[in-house]
């Protein structure tokens, strides 16, 4: 699955292999100015949580979105889910523009046209979809970080996994609903499903709880699962099981997975491509092996050098950056990584680099790699 360049070609967006296309996504949170500020006419300040993110995700592909806290990865995920309306940019799911669905207060359907005219559809897809926000959410499911918090403590496993069906009014017949829930539970590795149906979350281990959450995500048969730190709160010895389960789902059912994490180690071992985020932007993206073997962006290099490795004989030079990630409100001029960058040059204060192709399917946003390569717009 080759990664498409960020430039969106309208025709290419209809290729069914691309499940998700994000182009120039922005999400800004305005800060209240206060009375004095408003009176003095000061411009409002803004939290640049997501500040121009573009990437694609193919069918059956696993993309890791990696970054430290505050880099905007979770905000990106929430925007993709439609839980946060995007400030700007576009999100295309299976070729259809779904960016502004969440802007409608009741998720009402757009105008539908009786006959689906192929050519007209290609010219202006946004007129046609009868895709409402609710129906979109059947296709994209999200798994959250804390298995102890993702489930209502007073709801049984059956109720938790059946909830998506209930919300969407599917399978009203309780027998078929039960069957579907059991199937989802078994697909998540909880066998026999019947033994788990009546249990409450506190009676299950962390790993089992996370499997229940995954079953809840599977029951609607989605094509995309966004997993936000699905294993960080689990014991190390059972993480592999959950990650292997996700890998399995991709292989057997062609589900695409967006794996969000701060843990480069797990991102390294089961994802196809990796995107590194910093202060609301993707600074490097490419096939996982290649990015790890030959990181081009200084931030990626620094991160990789400090990730602890269980090998005491490997003494690497640790590029420990000083300070903390600055707040996303007052961004530095030029490249946003400049204040902490160990190899910044004068030009970095002036130019805000975009992603440049540095290898096949591999891009980095750094002034220093721009030099002799053609820029991808």
């Amino acid at each position, binding site marked *: 699955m080759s990664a498409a360049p960020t430039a969106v070609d309208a025709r290419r967006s209809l290729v069914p292999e691309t499940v998700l296309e994000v182009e120039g996504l922005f999400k800004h949170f305005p800060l209240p100015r206060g009375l004095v500020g408003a009176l003095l006419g000061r411009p409002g300040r803004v939290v640049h949580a997501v500040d121009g993110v573009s990437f694609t995700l193919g069918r059956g592909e696993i993309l890791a979105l990696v970054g430290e*806290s505050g880099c905007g990865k979770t905000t990106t995920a929430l925007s993709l889910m439609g839980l946060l309306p995007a400030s700007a940019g576009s999100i295309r799911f299976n070729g259809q523009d779904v960016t502004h669905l969440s802007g409608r207060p009741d998720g009402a359907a757009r105008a539908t046209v009786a006959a689906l005219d192929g050519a007209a559809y290609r010219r202006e897809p946004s007129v046609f979809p009868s895709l409402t926000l609710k129906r979109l959410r059947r296709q994209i499911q999200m798994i959250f970080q804390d298995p102890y918090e993702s489930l209502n403590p007073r709801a049984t496993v059956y109720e938790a996994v059946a909830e998506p069906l209930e919300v969407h009014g599917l399978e009203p017949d309780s027998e078929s609903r039960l069957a579907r829930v059991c199937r989802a539970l078994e697909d998540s590795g909880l066998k026999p499903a019947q033994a788990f149906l009546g249990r409450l979350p506190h009676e299950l281990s962390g790993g089992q709880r996370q499997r229940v959450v995954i079953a809840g995500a599977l029951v609607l048969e989605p094509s995309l699962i966004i997993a936000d730190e699905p294993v960080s709160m689990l014991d*190390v*010895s059972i993480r*592999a099981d959950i990650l292997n389960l996700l890998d399995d789902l991709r292989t057997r059912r062609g589900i695409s997975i967006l794996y969000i994490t701060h843990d480069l180690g797990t991102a390294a*071992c*089961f994802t196809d491509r990796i995107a590194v985020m910093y202060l609301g932007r993707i600074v490097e993206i490419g096939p996982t092996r290649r990015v790890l073997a030959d990181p081009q962006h200084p931030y990626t290099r*620094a991160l990789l050098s400090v*990730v*602890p490795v*269980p090998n005491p004989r490997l003494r690497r030079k640790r590029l420990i950056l000083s300070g903390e990630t600055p707040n996303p409100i007052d961004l530095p001029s030029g490249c946003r990584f400049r204040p902490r960058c160990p190899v910044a040059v004068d030009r970095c204060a002036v130019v805000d680099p975009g992603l440049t192709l540095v290898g096949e399917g591999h891009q980095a946003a750094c002034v220093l790699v721009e030099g002799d390569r053609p820029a991808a717009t």
Partner: protein
Amino acid sequence: MEIDASPLLDVRHLSTHFVTDEGVFRAVEDLSFQLRRGEFLGLVGESGCGKTTAMLSVLRLLPAAGRIVAGEVRLEGEDILALEAAEMRRVRWRKMSIIFQGAMNALNPVRSVGDQIAEALVLHEMAPTYHQAGKRVAELLELVGIDAARADQYPHQYSGGMRQRAMIAMALACNPQIVIADEPTTALDVMIQAQILELLERLQGELGLAVILVTHDLSVVAEVCHNVLVMYGGVLAEYATVDAIYNEPLHPYTRLLLEAFPDLSRPDARLVSIPGQPPRLNALPAGCRFAPRCPMVIDRCRVEAPPVRQVRPGRWATCHRIDEEGV
């Protein structure tokens, strides 16, 4: 860093139980290890293995149901378990201090950080008043890399990494010889984690501290520790130098645990998980506690709990199968 020969802390056969309505939880059983001046010991294990309980036992800070039922904890030769409560208070923080798990989130939000550090000083009579503690507070903050001018700020004005540094400063307030850090980097970003570990290494070098780093993260231990003690289900599984543990692990649990950790230097290695669950400490099986999950289990393991044995010079483990043919 040179490690002194005579042990600063000598824990022998420590056993701690929790007495509750649901039975007696044998949280720590027959734990022994030594800590020398300037040594960095990693105490590794997953949740529920007893590592935090063991450390709380050493400091005698167990919660209501905890009972230390056996063993000695010798600090500079003296058994601190035999001390009176008042004497123990003098040992606590002055000789040995602890950075609790998640402590950085337990700072009092309505008092300044400087005030809270000063509290440790005043309580232990190292400064007569909060005001006079100010100078030492400034020193401590500079020591951990925080600008001393920030002493008057409140915890919410500090970032996560800075709060953790403040907790380290608090732990160092009375010049202890031993600092126990319980999961100091778990909630932190990778870069901040690296900063904190670097700080701990530097402090160890400058102050000659001995540090016990309690964590579930084997990779972190590999980066900074001299010796490693792996715990499972409340007992010592393996205790050896860091090099030995990683390059020649002997206990089956240690081996499996190493394979469960992603290694960036070998990204193609497939992650393994250990089937099953840690044992319930109030319903322990007879025999080895790891037997239900061990790939190398034999009948003897289920019946007879393996004793702590010195299987090589300087290495201890609890396993029947080590040194049999082909292990």
